[in-house]
């Protein structure tokens, strides 16, 4: 049966990325503690699911590589192979390759790659030939094409412990029959867990499920391939069960076997098949509940925007109701309005919250990266993450990853000294890098801190002179802060050796530009010999910005606060003419003035003598915008003007103000 899988591609990509994240995390744990069985189990489970998913989607190369990886993992679990660095490194390499394949699939829909070299290494490891595995990395890849297993979990089966046997014996003595049922769910079924639930429901009508493989919890969460087994005690006959299960759509009953209790001994015994890996079907008490995946629903961000619009509308109309109640003095209405007020405020908060995502999503990929970096650079790094539960708007989350990668690389490459150097300075051999996120008011702060040598301002200044950014005289007058600020100049990099990791000439200026495009700011503190801290300040959400509301005649406009330097009040007599251009003197410098009313051809003329000047910044140049009055600072939700009105110079979008009017947001850059 060939199905069109394209509609499931998005789900597949998202899920496989999640699995890869789990794989990387757990493998790091395993690397630290090779006896961590839970981590190994989870790696195995995630790899297994990934394999099933990819072969379902027809990405055979992906499935093939995962399959070989799984073989090695299975031997690790069994204790046949030791957990050593060669194995861990190879598996990490496999993860990278998997990531690459998945990225390829996302980019151009094709998952075809030649993985024979990696597979070869895996095969060598499996046979215990670690030396060959270590050497073979650089050898010519040997093409090995393994057929993708059609059904990945066919070898799984139940293992029983003493307690299970007792329960089963008890059941038999009460005229229950024991069945081992294997059910396959149609490929392409999107809600596997629901089908599994329906199967459970159907057979539990007059029986009880003792065990399932994978465990019920995994089945609930859809964490399984396309088939699962259950062990059932029931009073009904096998054909009755089969008939009942036959009524459930999208599933296939592979077999229903009655099990003879006498075959079972108190030792773990397989009912059928080979015990390839003895996964205890019941959750062991120490299994990591904390890693239990949260139940989530994926929602298109547009729908959330829509929801937010509607809530905004509701709040607005509530305001009108309040007015009516107030002006007509209807006390009964007021009571109801208060209720609505409370509900709508809560609703607004909830909707805002729905858009928020824990920064964990971004942070989780860093431990792996830091580990690799530290290895490459031969440095010892203790990497700490704090506040990963801090929440940020989804749009910001998507953008913040790259700048952080950059800062972390900087910290490890430039910030931390080598182990010998650290020992010489009397520091601990292991350097510390801390990645920290926290809320403060309406902002989120993300910090990257290292306890390295700090920024060498002398070197920074020397470099600035060398690059022709400043003259040596200018440099002498710089304060330490100003010197550090030089780092953000385009094309600046202080790394003495151009390494693979950083120092490729694109540096902190890229980070700064990115942060600023997210309406954020970046600060640096650095103490010589003690370390450096980069602080990124970000707004909680991008859809909402701070703006200054101004008025010209009857019209109101919003100016993004990020482009406003200051405001000041002037009278008509303060204005001077210089070459036909209105200017004022502002603290000794000449500030050209533009009347907003003229720029926007607002009808009517202002006759007031007092006016306000909003000093805005356009490409390092300050300009004064003359307006009639300042209304105040306000948080605004940016909306697009749409296709018909898009691209009008000077306008960045629109907002719906509290009174329901549309107000326009000025774009300072294109206004003049």
């Amino acid at each position, binding site marked *: 049966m060939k199905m069109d899988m394209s509609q499931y591609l998005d789900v597949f990509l998202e899920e496989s990325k999640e699995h890869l994240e789990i794989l990387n995390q757990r493998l790091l744990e395993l690397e630290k503690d090779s006896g961590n069985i839970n981590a190994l189990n989870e790696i195995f489970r995630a790899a297994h699911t990934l394999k099933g998913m990819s072969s379902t989607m027809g990405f055979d190369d992906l499935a093939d590589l995962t399959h070989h990886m799984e073989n090695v993992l299975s031997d690790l679990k069994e204790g046949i192979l030791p957990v050593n660095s060669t194995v861990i490194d190879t598996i990490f390499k496999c993860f990278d390759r998997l990531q690459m394949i998945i990225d390829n699939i996302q980019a151009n829909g094709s998952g075809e790659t030649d993985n024979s070299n990696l597979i070869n290494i895996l095969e060598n490891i499996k046979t215990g030939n670690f030396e060959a595995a270590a050497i073979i990395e650089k050898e010519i890849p040997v093409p090995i094409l393994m057929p993708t297993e059609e059904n990945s979990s066919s070898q799984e089966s139940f293992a029983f412990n003493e307690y299970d046997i007792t329960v089963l014996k008890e059941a038999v003595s009460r005229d229950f029959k024991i069945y081992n049922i294997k059910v396959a769910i149609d490929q392409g079924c999107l809600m596997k867990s629901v089908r599994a639930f329906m199967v459970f429901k159907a057979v539990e009508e007059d029986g009880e499920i003792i065990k399932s493989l994978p465990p019920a919890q995994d089945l609930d969460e859809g964490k399984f391939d396309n088939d699962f087994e259950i062990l059932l005690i029931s009073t009904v006959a096998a054909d009755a069960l089969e008939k009942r299960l036959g009524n459930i759509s999208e599933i296939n009953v592979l077999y229903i076997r009655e099990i003879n209790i006498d075959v079972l001994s108190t030792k773990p015994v397989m009912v059928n098949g080979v015990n390839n890996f003895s996964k205890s079907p019941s959750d062991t008490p120490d299994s990591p509940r904390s890693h239990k995946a949260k139940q989530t629903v994926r929602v298109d961000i547009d729908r959330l925007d829509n929801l937010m619009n509607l809530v905004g509308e509701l709040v607005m109309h509530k305001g009108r109701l309040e007015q009516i109640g107030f002006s007509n003095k209807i006390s009964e209405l007021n009571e109801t309005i208060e209720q609505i007020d409370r509900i709508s405020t809560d609703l607004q908060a909830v909707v805002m919250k729905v858009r928020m995502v824990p920064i964990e999503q971004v942070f989780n990929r860093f431990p792996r990266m830091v580990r690799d970096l530290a290895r490459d650079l031969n440095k010892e790094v203790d990497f700490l993450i704090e506040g990963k539960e801090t929440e940020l708007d989804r749009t910001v989350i998507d953008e913040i990853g790259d700048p952080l990668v950059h800062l972390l690389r900087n910290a490890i490459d430039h910030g931390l000294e080598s182990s010998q150097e650290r020992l010489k300075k009397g520091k601990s051999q292991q350097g510390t890098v801390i990645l920290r996120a926290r809320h403060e008011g309406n902002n989120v702060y993300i910090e990257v801190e290292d306890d390295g040598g700090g920024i060498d301002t002398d070197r920074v200044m020397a470099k600035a002179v060398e690059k022709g950014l400043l003259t040596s005289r200018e440099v002498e007058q710089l304060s330490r802060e100003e010197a550090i600020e030089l780092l953000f100049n385009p094309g600046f990099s202080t790394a003495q050796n151009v390494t693979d990791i950083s120092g490729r000439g694109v540096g902190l200026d890229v980070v700064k530009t990115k942060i600023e495009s997210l309406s954020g700011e970046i600060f640096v503190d650095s103490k010589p010999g003690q370390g450096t801290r980069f602080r990124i300040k970000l707004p909680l959400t991008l859809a909402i910005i701070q703006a200054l509301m101004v008025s010209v005649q009857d*019209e109101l406009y919003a100016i993004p606060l990020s482009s406003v330097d200051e405001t000041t009040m002037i009278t008509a007599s303060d204005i001077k003419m210089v070459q036909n251009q209105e200017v004022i003197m502002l603290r000794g410098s000449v500030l050209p003035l533009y009347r907003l009313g003229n720029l*926007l*051809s607002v009808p009517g003329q202002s006759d007031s003598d007092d006016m306000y000047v909003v000093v805005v910044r356009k490409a390092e140049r300050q300009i004064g915008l003359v307006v009639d009055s300042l209304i105040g600072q306000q948080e605004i939700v940016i909306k697009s*003007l*749409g296709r*018909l009105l898009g691209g009008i110079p000077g*306008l960045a979008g*629109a907002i719906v103000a509290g009174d*329901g*009017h549309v107000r326009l947001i000025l774009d300072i850059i294109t206004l003049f």
Partner: protein
Amino acid sequence: MEENRNLYFQGSYSQDDEIQVVAFNLGKEEYAVDILNVQEINRLLNITRVPKSENHIEGVVNLRGNIIPIINLHKKFNLQSEGNEEDKRIVVFQFDDLKVGIIVDEVSEVLRLGKEDIEDTEKVYSSINAEHIKGIAKVNNRLLILLDLLKIMES
């Protein structure tokens, strides 16, 4: 939900050779548009002027959190505005992802027009160029000019 509604409307007229139209006045003339393109009809909301936009763009309004541009067809086609301010309405249209409103002097009614009642455009005179008109419908003693709004928007 939106789709369901459209399906319902399609079903309601495609069996018999009729179309449903919303009829309205612009100046002294009567116009009509296919009801399938009409999202809603509103009183004149607070219209915000958009500086530097084309002359016939009256401005933008807030419609349940959406910013909708409003086109003034009087200005575009040099029509005189008639009737009471009270009767003026904004008719909001939706074409795929584009939502736009036009100001009309009065919305008169929703009508069913037989396809055979609709005539070709060249024969009839109107203030609006023939290229913006889909046809003319005769209902009793009235003449309804069927507008092609998408063309108007694109021009």
